[in-house]
């Protein structure tokens, strides 16, 4: 077994992240440190499933973080339909650490629609809920 990384030497001095270890199930915070969601899966740029990959093909890239109801499918197999997964573009990620931070506010993300719905339709109708406590 080779101890080094000879085919892509320039990558050695860069950040190498392992998707399962560093991204899956991590908390996502928006630019104001408001919790948005957790990472359920990753969207990787398309490869033709089962087709031969010609030598020299550019490697796939992370396109987006996906979040959605994956608890049941992890326990029992399968995967949720694509329509149930919310997408956060990778270009909106500003850092990867113990949590993932975004450079956008959660209000602009589809992933936080449930929270916005509860805030506007339920919490917001409680008298006194639309202003700071005095």
């Amino acid at each position: 077994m080779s101890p080094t990384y000879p085919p892509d030497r320039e990558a050695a001095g860069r950040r190498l992240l392992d998707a399962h270890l560093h991204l899956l199930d991590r908390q996502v915070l928006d630019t104001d440190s408001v919790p948005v969601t957790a990472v359920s899966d990753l969207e990787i740029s398309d490869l033709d499933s089962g087709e031969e990959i010609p030598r020299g093909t550019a490697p796939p890239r992370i396109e987006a973080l996906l979040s959605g109801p994956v608890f049941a499918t992890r326990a029992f197999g399968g995967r949720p339909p694509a329509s149930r997964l919310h997408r956060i573009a990778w270009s909106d990620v500003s850092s990867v650490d113990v949590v993932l931070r975004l450079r956008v506010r959660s209000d602009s993300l589809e992933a936080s629609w449930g929270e916005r719905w509860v805030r506007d339709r339920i919490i917001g109708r409680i008298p006194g809920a639309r202003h700071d406590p005095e």
Partner: protein
Amino acid sequence: MILSELLTAEVRGDAPVGFVVDVRFVVDAPGEPDRAPEARLYGLIVSPHAKFSPMGFERKDLASPWPIAQIQGWLHRGSFLVHWEDVAAIGRGWVRLRPGFTRYDARLPEEARTLDEDW
């Protein structure tokens, strides 16, 4: 393609060699200031004996906590990294490698940067 299609996929060379337990990406140098650097697939971490996550123990020679390190070391003995160039095809639940593929050490090179720096 989504990541979960790759994780736990069976990896075959001339014969079955293991399972994908993680997918390593290299984060490119920052380009435009308001855009995250691209993360491109660098290689697949393949474990010959287990489908479980190695929990990062394969990245460095970690020895603690001792019981976990021992269990992980045993479960993932013989793990290796397959570079993207050695991947011949990817299907649902399987990955085929090119003939004569190289088994690279899954540990990080000394000069690899940590993730806790701002992009």
